[in-house]
Each structure stands twice: as C-alpha cells, then as structure tokens.
C-alpha cells in the first residue's frame, strides 16, 4: 500500500512528563479505513500517544501528519477526529439527544439535519428509545453506546477509542467488541483503539501496535504478532507461551530444553544465545514415545473448557505448558513433538547486565552509587576513573531483606523460562537489572541485591 493511503503519519514523536520520557521516538503510519489497536501494559505510553493524536496535549518533538498537514500543534476542536473517552465523559447536564447533538449544534448544522443524524446515530448503536433519558439513568453499556454515537455524529475521518470497554463486565465487553467491529465495517472510517487487553486486540484489529515503556515493540497483523513475536516481551504479553533460553547452533537448527530442533529461522549466526517462543497449542503430546522428539512426565492437567492445560516436566527437567483436546493422566510418561515452523526464534535484547562503574580503589567499584567489592583491578585503573562492567544474569544474588543487599530494588517483571525465572529488577535509582534465579519471587517484591566480587567483570 502506498503513501497516499496513509491517513495519519507519526514521525519521531516524543513526549516527557516531569522529566520522565513517556514516549520515545514513535514512528507509525495508519492506513485509511484501518482498525488499528495500540496495545500495551499500563504505563507504556499508549494513552499518551492517543492524547497527542487527539490534541489534548502537545508533543515535545516530532510531527503528526494528517492529510498532508502537521497537526501536532492544532487544538483539538480544529482536528477532524473524535474520541470515545475511557470514562465516556458524557455531559451530565444534557440528555442523550443533546449529548449526541452537541458537536452538530456547534458546527451550525441545520436543525432538521441534526435531528436526522442524531436519530440515525442512536439507531446505529441501538439506543433509539433513550433520546430523552438523563445520562446518569443509563447503565455503563448504554453510556458507552451514547459516547460512541456522540463521537460518530460529527462524521470524523478517524475515531479514537481510549480503552472504551474497560469499564464493562466480561459478557458486555464481548458483545461490544463484535458491535464495534461491525460499526467499523459499516462506517468505513479509521478506528484507533487503545487497550491493555491482548485478547481484545487480537479479536478486533486489522493491525496491532505493541508498546512497552514508551517504545513501539512490534507492528503487525494479529496473526503476525501472535505467531511471530519479535521479542520476549511481545511473546509474553500476547497469549500464553513457553519462552525458553536457546542456542542457535546454525541456520535452521536450534538447541533448547537440552535437545536440538529443526526450525525455519536463518541468519542468527552460529552458537548464538537466543530466546524461543513455543505456543502451548503448538506442542504435540502423545501417550507413546515412538516418533517423539523428547519425553516427559505430566505434572498437572486442568480442563479449561475447550482444551486441557497440561504441565509437563521434560526429560531434562524443564517445565512446559501444553494445550491439547485430550486429557493426560498425571504422572504418566508422554512423548512430545514440535514442528519447525512452530518454533519462533528471537534475538535476546541482551545477554548480560552491562553498566558504568567508577573505580574507588584496587578492589572496590562504585556501581549505581553504591560500593561493591571486586577482584583486584590490577595496573592502569586510577581511583575515580570510569570503567564498564558486566554481570551475568545468573550471578546476581537476591536477598529477602532489602537491608541485606548493597542495593535494593523491586521485582518489576518476571518470566518463567522452563527451568528458571527471568526477573527484571528496577533498582531504587531507576536503573534495571536482569536476573536469572531458581527462587520464586512475586511482582512487586522488594529485594536486596548482592554481587560476588568474582562475578563483576571489567569489559571496557
């Protein structure tokens, strides 16, 4: 699709609030008529991005091009787009009819035309009988519909939706997802939808933009995003998955859980550490061992409605999650098989922690403002000089009590990798450390951090 098909182009957009960068160099184009979803956990900057597009705040740098013009400084009332707000923001002093007619009256549309359009919009969202109702007499779902009708009444080229379904109960949300999708087809305009719900994103979108900490991680169709996540974050955020440490042995050959597997990925190089993602439904499980690539023992089997969720301890002591239509007996020996195209190989974002340090004396370094003991640095390291140090993920010692560590931090994220946990520790100074550990921690746990002197390596 060519450039002329882009309704919105976002170039190098950045935004900070009080010193924190909320959006970092966002580049994105949106096609005419597309249903695009911006997906990410809370605090990833998705709502900020939507507010910049809507005009409710202005970017620090970058441009938002709509119909060939940079609108990043245009006030919201002059932008040809409308928004469905998270808490609907229906005007409580106006009834349903006047809420929907609000934009049309401002635009001085003739009275009979307003009447026609308001009725048409209310009919479209099945709220025809509610014209004279007060806003607070409506249920959440009904308010939602009125908010959509109000935003669509202005006939915008682009509709922005800020987590519009998050306040609804599960059943209502499912219904509204289908209705919104149908509405999108009927109207033929561009929808930009913001959500933290990956299932919602997969169901509704033509294109998904996955965001994390102010950056776009991946842009693609729901199928692409699900089947070929570019990194461990996307894989973990979208759907259930087994994420495992692996080594790319050569093109089309990868080793993980102690076995070599054929895969379809090339160009990673030889003997390179990577991550692999295997969706639970892509592992074939059978009662006999003949024809299996590896074996294991069933540790749990839970009925989930359509399928069974099975946990297996493999022959090399890795835990895998598998989904299958058939139940397997707990404790039974099973064989498993993974097809080459179902193995998604991803680059590791990094293979060890690397950070700046300051030399204090021959055996001490200052890292993140605290003093760490290290092996003798040897000649050529003056006190006060700067060095770069590396610490492997599995060489960081976490303590239950904050006071027992030299640094302390909070478990910001955790990921089970088959035989160990991969933790993201946000230390009190704001920097991140990645830690591999066999101990079980919870998100939000406060931990003390220690590093043995021999594990601090000077790398430059």
């Amino acid at each position, binding site marked *: 699709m060519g450039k002329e098909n882009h309704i919105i182009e976002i170039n190098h957009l950045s935004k900070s609030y009080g010193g924190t960068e909320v959006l970092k160099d966002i580049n994105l184009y949106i096609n005419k008529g597309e249903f695009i979803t911006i997906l990410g956990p809370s605090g990833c900057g998705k709502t900020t991005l939507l507010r910049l597009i809507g*005009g409710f705040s202005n970017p620090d740098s970058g441009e938002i091009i709509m119909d060939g013009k940079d609108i990043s400084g245009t006030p919201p*009332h002059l932008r040809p787009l*409308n*928004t469905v707000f998270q*808490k609907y923001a229906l*005007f*409580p*002093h106006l009834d349903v009819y006047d809420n929907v007619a609000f934009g049309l009256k401002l635009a001085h549309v003739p009275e009979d035309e307003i009447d026609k359009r308001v009725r048409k919009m209310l009919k479209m969202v099945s709220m025809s009988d509610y014209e004279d109702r007060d806003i607070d007499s409506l249920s959440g779902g009904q308010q939602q519909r009125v908010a959509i009708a109000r935003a669509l009444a202005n006939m915008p080229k682009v509709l922005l939706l800020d987590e519009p379904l998050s306040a609804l109960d599960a059943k209502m949300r499912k219904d509204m997802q289908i209705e919104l999708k149908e509405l999108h087809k009927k109207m033929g305009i561009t929808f930009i939808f913001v959500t933290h719900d990956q299932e919602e994103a997969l169901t509704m979108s033509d294109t998904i933009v996955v965001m994390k900490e102010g950056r776009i991680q991946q842009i693609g169709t729901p199928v692409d995003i699900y089947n070929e996540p570019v990194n461990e974050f996307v894989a973990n955020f979208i759907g259930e998955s087994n994420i495992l440490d692996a080594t790319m042995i050569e093109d089309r050959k990868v080793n993980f859980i102690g076995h070599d597997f054929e895969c379809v990925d090339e160009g990673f190089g030889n003997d390179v550490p990577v991550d692999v993602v295997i969706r639970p439904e892509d592992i074939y499980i059978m009662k006999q061992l003949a024809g299996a690539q590896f074996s294991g023992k069933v540790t749990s089997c839970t009925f989930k409605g359509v399928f069974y969720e099975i946990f297996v301890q493999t022959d090399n002591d890795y835990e895998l999650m598998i989904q299958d239509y058939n139940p397997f007996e707990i404790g039974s020996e099973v064989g498993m098989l993974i097809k080459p195209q179902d193995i998604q190989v991803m680059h590791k974002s990094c293979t060890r922690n690397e950070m700046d340090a300051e030399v204090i004396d021959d055996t001490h370094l200052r890292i993140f403002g605290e003093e760490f003991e290290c092996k003798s640095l040897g000649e050529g390291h003056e006190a006060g000089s700067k060095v770069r140090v590396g610490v492997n993920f599995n060489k960081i010692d976490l303590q239950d009590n904050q006071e027992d560590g030299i640094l302390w931090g909070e478990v910001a994220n955790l990921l089970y990798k088959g035989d160990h946990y991969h933790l993201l520790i946000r230390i009190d100074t704001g920097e991140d450390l990645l830690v591999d550990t066999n101990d079980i921690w919870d998100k939000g746990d406060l931990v003390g951090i220690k590093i043995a002197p021999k594990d601090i390596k000077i790398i430059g």
Partner: protein
Amino acid sequence: MAVRRYTWSYPYFIFLAIFAVLPLILVAVYAFQDAQGHFTFANVTRFFSDSNALNTFAVSIEVAIENTLICLLLGYPAAWILANKKYNSSMVTVILFMLPMWVNALMRTLATAELFNMLGVGLGKGTLLFGMVYDYLPFMIYPIYNVLNKMDNSYAEAAADLGANPMQVFWKITVPLSKAGIVSGILMVFMPTVSTFAISEFLTNNKIKLFGTIIQENINSSMWNYGAALALIMLIIIGLTSLLSDNEEKEMEEGAL
C-alpha cells in the same frame, strides 16, 4: 451499662433548643402580640402599609442583588483561575483569598471606613457596595472554586474534541457544570447581605438604611413587637429563597455526578 449512641446527642439538642428554637418561638410570639401582650396581626399588616419600611426593604433587596452580582462577576473568574492548574498549582494562593474571612468582619469594615475617611472619599452607595463586596467575596469564590476544582477535566476535553473552542467549552460545559457552586455562592452572599446593618452603618454613616438597620432600630427603641414581626418577615423571605435554590442545587448535584 453501655451508653446508647443517641444519648451523646442530648447536649446538642439542648443547645439547639435554647439558642435556636426558643429564640425563634419568641420572635414568632412577639411578632403576633401588641405591647400589652394581646394577640394581634397588626405588626405584620403595619409593615405592608409602612412605606418607610417597604422602601428600605426594596433598597435592601436592590443592594443585595447588586452585591451578589458584583461578587459573582469578580468571584467566578477568580475561582476559575485558582482551580486551573495551569495558572495556580499551590494551595497558598487559595488560602490568601480566604484569609480575610479569618478577620472579624466588623473590624474589617471599621478599618475600611477609616481608610475612606483618610482618603477623603465621601461615604455613600459606592462605599457601601465596596465594603459588602470586600466582606462577602470569599463566600462566593470558595464554593465555586470547590466545584471547579473537583470537576473532571474530561468533560472539557470531550467538548473540545467535539469542536467547541475554549469560549464555547467555558459557556456550554464549565459554567453549567459549576451551577451548584454558583447557587451556593449566591445564597451565601445574598442572604446575609439582606439582613446586614453594620456595614451600612459604618460605611454610609446610616445614610443608606437596610432592612437589618430597621429591625435593629426598632429593637433598640424597645419596639420589640414590630421588630420581631420584621425579623419574622425577613426570615420567611430568606427561607423561601433558600428552599427554592435548595431544590435546584439538589438537581444540579445529582447531575454533576
């Protein structure tokens, strides 16, 4: 034996009975008695034929309306600026606006009168209104500020999103949604202005008499019965206005949720 919770309220009921209910009953009793203690409607009917009292009443209402209008015109923008994070991010400014309320109104009024004397400004309607606005402005600002401060910004954003320019956002959204604050501001300014007498006494040297002044004069010259009748009439009028606005306020508060 445990003391039941409602027994704690006895002291307050006793207080209310002595200082609110009893005086009210006394006012009502005096209003319907002549000097000899016989029941009569004469005091009430006398007001409606007493052109002096009727005129003063009209002047009082006029001054009260003017004062309320000026307070609203000055107070609303002040409250809006105070509640707007863009212009004011500290509570200190808000407190500075409220600070005059901590000083006794009588002292402030006396000081204002002295100031006018010193500056050689002739006392009259102008100085009266000045004193009243000075005294009552915080009572207008505070309730409006409260409502504006709590108002969800998404309403204004939604209006702008639908094509309203900042002026239209203000008149079509901000003002209607702050109606509850405006109504209580008006009540808190209008009602006490009708009955005030100290401000007019000090700032006009009694050149302009207000309804409160007449009541005070009657009582000072021992015409308790007529004074009581006037007080009762004022009470009823104020009560009626507050009842009217109470209903409206309730509707608005429900709507503002």
